């Protein structure tokens, strides 16, 4: 029982990170119907920017951890958003009226560009960050097993929940959110009522990238390392999460992220750590057989 609880905590933490990345996939898919394969690498860039920002802050003497964390959050979100904006502006927008596969291929190219760029600039080695947030709480301590909830895990999960709340409010209640939903439902009509669709699409990328940056920071805090290659695996997992939850659906992306995190963690804990990816992807296949549009995705039956 204690062991199970511990795995549940670990799974939810990992799932939160996947969920944050998955939102970026699902939003971009919703609005322009393409899979942004470079999104995982934008997450990786976010992790690196966070690492550099942490080290720079420590070097100039910002030693209070909460302040440093807050500043890193701002810096990483801002700079990564700039990356997201740039990728859209130069790799996707010129291809918007091209054939459907063109932006997809461009996205794969962009993913390779970002990976190689970071590899050249930062080196191929794993970059460690000394643990900044230490300690935790022992929830249940029995004789042979103690359930730990570390402070990092608390930070990861609460930050994720907080951002999700802000973000859901933004989409449901603000003018920008309404514009985004209008573009998602009918891009052409949105332009006819006077919505600047290029700007709205750019903002979608900016928001997606800044959430990916948060995921990058959380990854860095949780695992303590980044390298140029983390974007690939995390990207594929988050993409799986978005599809599992129902691509195009925001709550679906979070739910899918949590599920993938939990499946992976429990499989590693009870069966074999080597096959955890197989488990996650197998569940995806099984779910898609019975629910082809994902768990919360909507089947295409609109009245016209």
């Amino acid at each position: 029982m204690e062991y199970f609880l511990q795995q549940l905590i670990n799974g939810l933490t990992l799932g939160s990170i996947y969920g944050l990345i998955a939102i970026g996939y699902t939003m971009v898919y919703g609005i322009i119907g393409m899979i942004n394969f470079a999104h995982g690498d934008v997450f990786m860039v976010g992790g690196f920017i966070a690492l550099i920002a942490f080290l720079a802050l420590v070097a100039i003497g910002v030693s209070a951890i909460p302040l440093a964390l807050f500043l890193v959050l701002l810096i990483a979100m801002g700079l990564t958003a700039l990356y997201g904006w740039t990728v859209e502006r130069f790799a996707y927008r010129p291809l918007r009226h091209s054939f459907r596969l063109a932006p997809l291929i461009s996205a794969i190219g962009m993913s390779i560009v970002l990976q190689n760029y970071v590899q050249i600039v930062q080196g191929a080695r794993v970059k460690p960050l000394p643990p900044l947030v230490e300690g935790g709480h022992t929830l249940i301590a029995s004789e042979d097993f103690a359930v730990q909830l570390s402070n990092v895990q608390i930070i990861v999960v609460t930050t994720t929940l907080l951002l999700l709340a802000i973000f859901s409010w933004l989409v449901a209640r603000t003018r920008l959110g309404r514009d985004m939903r209008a573009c998602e439902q009918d891009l052409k009509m949105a332009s006819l009522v006077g919505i600047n669709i290029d700007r709205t699409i750019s903002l979608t990328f900016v928001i997606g990238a800044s959430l990916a940056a948060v995921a990058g920071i959380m990854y860095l805090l949780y695992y303590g390392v980044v390298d140029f290659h983390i974007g690939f695996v995390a990207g594929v997992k988050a993409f799986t999460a978005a599809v599992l939850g129902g691509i195009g659906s925001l709550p679906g992306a979070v739910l899918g992220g949590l599920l993938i995190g939990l499946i992976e963690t429990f499989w590693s804990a009870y069966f074999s750590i080597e096959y955890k990816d197989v488990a996650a992807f197998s569940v995806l296949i099984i779910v898609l057989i019975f629910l082809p549009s994902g768990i919360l995705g909507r089947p295409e039956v609109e009245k016209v």
Partner: protein
Amino acid sequence: MTAPLLAIRGVKTFYGNIMALKGVDLDVHEGEIVTLIGANGAGKSTLMMTTFGNPRAREGSIVFDGIDITNMPPHEIAKLRIAQSPEGRRIFPRMTVLENLQVGATVADPANFAADLKRVCTLFPLLEKRIGQRGGTLSGGEQQMLSIARALMSRPRLLLLDEPSLGLAPMLVKQIFRAIRELNERERLTVFLVEQNAFHALKLAHRGYVIVNGQITLSGTGRELLVRPEVRAAYLEGGRH
């Protein structure tokens, strides 16, 4: 006569290599209802969308109130207070009726929102009852009303209506045409109406144009066109309802 509000001159529009509009000239004056009638595929909707810059005219010019809008992006054109209820209604299906109307007011002054909402609800009382319902769950007629109401929310100076009668029961068609006439008479709203339902459209309109294969073949006042033998033969005989 004063300069027209909308002046379309020699417009040619292509889909790939196919010329859909072969040099169209058309005027809409302030306060008028102008209708464009023609068969399926004649280029009616293409002309309406070309006015909005999507697709763009490859040749010719479109001038609205002295401003050349031929190469403007659609959202800039909307800011000049041209509103469209397009072919197929295109309401936002996963938004409520209220949200659809809010989106329609994108280019309007937010201070006018309450008054404009009241105005469209008076025009189409059914919408008020459905205000919190999702657009996609409305019936065809209700969707058509919503589409027109959404266009009206921007306080347009020119309203483009693309086949508002399509697929609707005759009673609803009458209701919608009555609403258009009311708007025109009471508020001097300028309307450019594309229709297959030639009889109703010509009765309603001050002036009409007939488009065949991407070219304007006839024009005149609504009453003149109604009695023209070629119009009667092509669009009215047997099609009266």
